[in-house]
């Protein structure tokens, strides 16, 4: 299996968000809200850090 860096990050973010949502929330609606929030936060933070580091690669 050969995933790209971005695909690996999306997989990582989704599964970790799923785990956190089920561990920290009890009701289904709260879990879904937390999952979406954590997933988006993971992606945004990762992409932001990527762009911050971008000048260092040139």
């Amino acid at each position: 299996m050969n995933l790209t860096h971005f695909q690996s990050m999306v997989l990582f973010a989704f599964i970790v968000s799923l785990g956190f949502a089920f561990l920290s929330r009890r009701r289904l609606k709260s879990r879904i809200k937390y999952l979406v929030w954590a997933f988006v936060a993971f992606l945004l933070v990762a992409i932001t850090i990527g762009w911050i580091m971008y000048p260092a690669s040139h």
Partner: protein
Amino acid sequence: MPDNNPENIPEQIPEPIPETAPLAGAQPAPLEASAVGEQIAPGAAPTYEQESLSSSARSVFIAVAGWIVPGLGHLFQWRIGRALAGFAAVGTMAVMGLWMRGNVFPMHSDDAFGVLGFIADAGSGIFYLLAHTIEKAGPDVSRAAGDYGTRLIATAGVLNMLFVLDALEISRGHKN
């Protein structure tokens, strides 16, 4: 304004069960039975130490079960949602990491990072033990995907440790 957020609604505390009156003619329980492992007379209530030992053994059993098979610690306590989520999350991440040919750290390592990698990987329990069965070709970190797979395997183990701690907290009554 009333707070309708379900997370903020306090859970209802069950009322204590009233003690039943002893039956007429029943023998009273012996008062001196405090040593752990001491024989209890038939009909006598277990002591605090014996109940505590039994509870600790149950907690250890749940922790070990949850470590070996992710989600099993929750399943034994009828937390079906968390059990399924734990198994799916840890299993998917570990198997994907292995299929990406990530590195699985062996038990004996010379450097500290190798030891930390082993601790993280071993957290996934059965998936660590069956790593070479799931991916027979073994690790290949010469490609970038192999490096990503290494991280996924380690994350699966750490995530399972969180699920084990959660199951342990539930079994001890610290968490509902």
